[in-house]
């Protein structure tokens, strides 16, 4: 079922658009409708219609037995120690078909404890699948794939993306639409530099690519979609084409997703690199509250990179500005 995008000729002409919120909501609705064993459980998912309104309307449609409001109960322990490991510890006897979904990373002004990006932490755990959608198409396809998947999936959304609208084709709107887990998407083709990003950062990478295009630099933007398993094959193929790589992420730089991508490219495509891999990440500090500092937080590294890259402009031939 995974990886099979049921083909349907997209009807030309009619191109709808959909917010990420609606995409997630419709994916949940369709999967719950198709399989009575699928249910939603969490804080505020029912009567409150979802803390971010993602599960709006589901309680009314499916009832309180399938949309279960829970008391407060929060812990990362079970994701890492039971969900990820039970299938292995039991040698395949006890599988854990569960999706842990919710907002990840920074929103606006929510402070240090509500702003961390956990992609790298979860991405380090064997036994988990970790997805990070960007557009509505990603949100629909990946959430459906996650729900149908028999293993634990951590589905990292982004609060600021919920309200953003993206064009969706008829194929995406079809209830059998599904995206494969473990495949990245080339959002924009290019030949001079590869930029990898996931979640909200894909938007910024695309904007950066636009700016670069005006300078005559053609950037290839890869939307990772899947943090674990990482689509090493697509990343390497792209780097072998462009010979330069910049990784962009929202999270902390040390031991981040960019570090992993850098390592795998160095391992597999070392001879193809014309310049060292550049990592762009959030500042190595907890997220500040003050609005101006919060704005500086991701660009702190970017400015640093900008200066750094400028110094090496001879070699890398890239000017780079995200903000």
């Amino acid at each position, binding site marked *: 079922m995974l990886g099979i995008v049921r083909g349907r000729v997209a009807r030309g002409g009619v191109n709808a658009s959909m917010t990420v919120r609606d995409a997630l909501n419709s994916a949940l609705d369709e999967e719950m409708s198709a399989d009575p064993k699928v249910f939603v459980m969490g804080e505020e998912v029912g009567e409150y219609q979802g803390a971010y309104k993602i599960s709006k309307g589901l309680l009314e449609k499916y009832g309180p037995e399938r949309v279960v409001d829970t008391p407060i109960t929060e812990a990362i322990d*079970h994701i890492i120690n039971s969900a990820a490991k039970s*299938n*292995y510890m039991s*040698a395949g*006897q006890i599988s854990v078909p569960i999706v842990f979904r919710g907002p990840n990373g920074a929103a606006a002004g929510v402070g240090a404890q509500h702003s961390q990006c956990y992609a790298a932490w979860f991405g380090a755990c064997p036994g988990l699948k970790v997805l990070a959608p960007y557009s509505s198409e990603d949100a629909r396809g990946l959430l459906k794939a996650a729900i149908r998947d028999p*293993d634990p999936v951590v589905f990292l959304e982004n609060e600021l993306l919920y309200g953003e609208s993206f064009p969706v084709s008829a194929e995406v709107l079809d209830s059998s639409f599904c995206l494969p887990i473990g495949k990245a998407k080339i959002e924009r083709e290019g030949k001079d530099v590869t930029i990898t990003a996931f979640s909200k950062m894909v938007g910024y990478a695309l904007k950066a690519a636009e700016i670069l295009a005006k300078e005559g630099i053609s950037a290839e933007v890869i939307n990772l979609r899947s943090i674990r398993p990482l*689509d090493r*094959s697509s990343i390497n193929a792209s780097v072998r084409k462009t010979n330069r790589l910049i990784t962009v992420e929202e999270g902390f730089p040390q031991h981040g997703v960019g570090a992993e991508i850098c390592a795998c490219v160095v391992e597999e495509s070392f001879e193809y690199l014309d310049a060292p891999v550049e990592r762009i990440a959030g500042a190595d500090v907890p997220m500040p509250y003050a609005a101006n500092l919060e704005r500086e937080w991701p660009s702190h590294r970017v400015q640093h990179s900008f200066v750094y890259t400028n110094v090496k402009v001879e070699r890398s031939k890239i000017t780079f500005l995200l903000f």
Partner: protein
Amino acid sequence: MTAAATKIIQPLPLNFTNTTARSPDKALFHPLKTTPSSSFPASTHKLRLTKPNSTLARRRSTAVFAVSDVVQEKKPKSNTFHPNLLITKEEGLELYEDMILGRSFEDMCAQMYYRGKMFGFVHLYNGQEAVSTGFIKLLKNEDCIVSTYRDHVHALSKGVPARAVMSELFGKTTGCCRGQGGSMHMFSKEHNVLGGFAFIGEGIPVATGAAFTSKYRREVLKEGDCDHVTLAFFGDGTCNNGQFFECLNMAALWKLPIVFVVENNLWAIGMSHLRATSDPEIWKKGPAFGMPGVHVDGMDVLKVREVAKEAISRARRGEGPTLVECETYRFRGHSLADPDELRDPSEKAHYAARDPITALKKYMVENNLASEAELKAIEKKIDEVVEEAVEFADSSPHPGRSQLLENVFADPRGFGIGPDGKYRCEDPKFTEGTAHV
């Protein structure tokens, strides 16, 4: 030291509480100050508190009878059928065999560990057999159990073959988890053993989820006959952990078919329960969340069984969860690496005198349910089973290298796409451990 059996007379009303408890004060246990119960369960001794204490004031008096009282009233009349005894001969033999299996198996584990056949963390259950046997022997195959790292005997009582458990402990591929789980992670889909968890309190939410599944299947998927019950076993230390309280709350809130079984053996490694807990009477935590809390003598398999019967049928009838505190004791240290220096030898002696196996044997012989010879035959049979399990485990192969990458995912495409653009798991060399991950 206080203990009294509870006989739950009728379906427990909400907020039913047992009125007896262990030591009234926070002082360390002094077994010599209390009257040990000399025989089982026909004893007329009801151990009382050494001094009255306001924390034990009976706020709600509910009828509580010692099982011994009920038994004592009626004397056995003949050698065969005893309508007034708590068990039939067949049941008695089943219970005895199960406890002997648990004890012999664990003793063999200790031997094997010191011979280097078993390794890592091994936690033995000696002394607590009455709880496992008393509860699990009442379950159907479809009922689930979830346990802690002290899970060998729970798995055995549930029906996992001794040879499968022993192989697992030896790390062999014929183990119940193919050698991938180990001592602390016994799983069996066939027997509905949902683990074996190392983290304190970790199994309780898993058990709560299993109970939720049972309810979901009955009410949403309309499987009307799904009345499966789940038992969660855990210790006294766990009862101070947050997950425990969260699950008590949810189980009572949603009336889940679960029984929370506390194996209170007074010690969490080297931390005495009385030093760690503001109110050491764990059964009281049940009514705080809206479920009955019951305290039972966990060294007496028949008492445990009586309480278990009621708690399990309550759950099966859809009346919700029960918290059962079993006062028990582990004869060995926390694990085989524990020198067990902190526990008072007189405390150990006190509980050794209440060995559940000896007690059941005495009961069966005194009530003419079985002869010494029959019981000896069982012991011999079990010895052979355990020996055979060791031989089987010894001669079983170690897992092949290819097994390393197996069973990480139910859908192995989770390993992602390889350099050739195809899913890694489609590479025939992948599970030989030769493919790059």
